[in-house]
């Protein structure tokens, strides 16, 4: 039976409702809150700052260090042991690779920019939410960046192409392909693409085209979150 009606009633190409805010963590140099459906991600950026341990310092450029963490109570009810597991380490790595193409770190030799992504509540799409939040946070911290990075998953559920799979769809009893993707709108490049499931090449290309529309919409939401922070009756600095 084909999957025509989505579990939560959304349209095929519709992503869940997004709330995005910049500057939510006062102690951090830059921070963001990104909520998509029931998945909530916080990102905090510290830096550029001195890098310890010293052997990691690179005299030709700064480095970007990402740390992804799902809080123990974030999932579906059972408490997960706190601390990094293999999955979190991998997501930390792909987050860093997704953000690296847009940031310009040549200005900060021997220094580090630390990005912390924490999720208090998840309902699938956590790494994408984390990347979206981290993008906003990096811009909020004043890091030189070519562009923001937008991310959301595309995929198929029982043959139907959908955008932004939630937990119910990922765990659907049928053939599912879950493909989180991070996208850089100004250059139209993909900086993260992972896949869980099976899909044909044609369907994948079709899904990417559908995803493009979603990424362009999401990047506008991210940009507005930054502008909102500085919006006050239209007056300017200095």
């Amino acid at each position, binding site marked *: 039976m084909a999957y025509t009606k989505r579990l939560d009633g959304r349209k095929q190409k519709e992503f869940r409702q997004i709330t995005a805010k910049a500057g939510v963590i006062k102690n951090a140099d830059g921070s963001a809150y990104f909520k998509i459906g029931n998945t909530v991600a916080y990102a905090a950026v510290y830096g550029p700052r001195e890098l310890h341990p010293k052997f990691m310092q690179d005299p030709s450029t700064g480095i970007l260090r990402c740390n992804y963490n799902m809080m123990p109570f974030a999932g579906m009810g059972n408490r997960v042991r706190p601390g990094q597991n293999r999955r979190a380490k991998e997501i930390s790595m792909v987050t860093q690779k997704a953000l690296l193409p847009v940031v310009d770190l040549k200005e900060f030799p021997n220094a580090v920019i630390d990005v912390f992504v924490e999720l208090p509540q998840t309902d699938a799409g956590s790494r994408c939410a984390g990347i979206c939040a981290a993008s906003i946070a990096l811009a909020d911290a004043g890091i*030189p960046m070519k562009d923001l990075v937008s991310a959301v998953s595309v995929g198929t559920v029982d043959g139907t192409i959908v955008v932004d799979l939630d937990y119910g769809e990922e765990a659907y009893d049928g053939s599912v392909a879950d493909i989180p993707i991070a996208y850089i709108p100004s250059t139209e490049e993909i900086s993260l693409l992972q896949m869980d499931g099976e899909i044909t090449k044609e369907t994948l290309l079709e899904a990417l085209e559908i995803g493009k529309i979603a990424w362009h919409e999401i990047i506008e939401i991210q940009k507005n979150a930054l502008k909102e922070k500085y919006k*006050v009756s239209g007056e300017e600095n200095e």
Partner: protein
Amino acid sequence: MGNLLVEERTVVVPGEKIAEGLDYLPANGAYRKDDFILAGRLGLLIMDGRAVKIIPLSGRYMPKRNDVIIGKVIDVTISGWRFEINCAYSAMLSMKDATSDFIARGADLTQFFNLDDMVVVKIVNVTSQKLVDLTTKGPGLRKLYGGRIVLVNCNKVPRIIGKQGSMVSLIKNATGCKIIVGQNGAIWIDGEPKNEVIAIEAIRKIEQESHISGLTDRVTEYLESKCGKIQMPAQEEQPQEEQ
């Protein structure tokens, strides 16, 4: 041919298209991509003739030559002192740039500056590897005694100083505190404790509301409510320290 796509003095975000055509030149914070000029960071768009500049609103201090800053001594070496200057890089003050007095070889350098001392210093050089050299030879450059240090967003420092030092003079006259503003966001305040608190509150206010117009009036109002009518001396000439 070319047109500006965004109004001047608006906040722009990374990747936002600012101008089209070949007429405009990307300056700090902006870059060219094909036919467009895009923002390369979050900041305020300022046009300088044909140059497109982005003034940062956030971000840690990046050391620049000739900046006068306030640093803290974190190490005393054989030939000088190492300072923490509120950024990712530390800075070095060598003996010869510290004082014209003769210092014997092997002398105890802590007599001049000891660990945790706060000093007003000037940056003489920043290398490509971000090695920073300092000097304390110059007007207003000295060790600080007493008072307290407040850290602010270094991008707000110009606003806190004001045109020709007008804003910081307002606070100094109202509270009677001595104030030195470092370009790295470190501010030294010395006065009666309760006046120091008022000065700090005024500075925080400026930091938070810097992008709203009418700030000078609001700050004056605030200071007058706390300290009474402000006596502005007849002709205020600007001491070097604040610049």
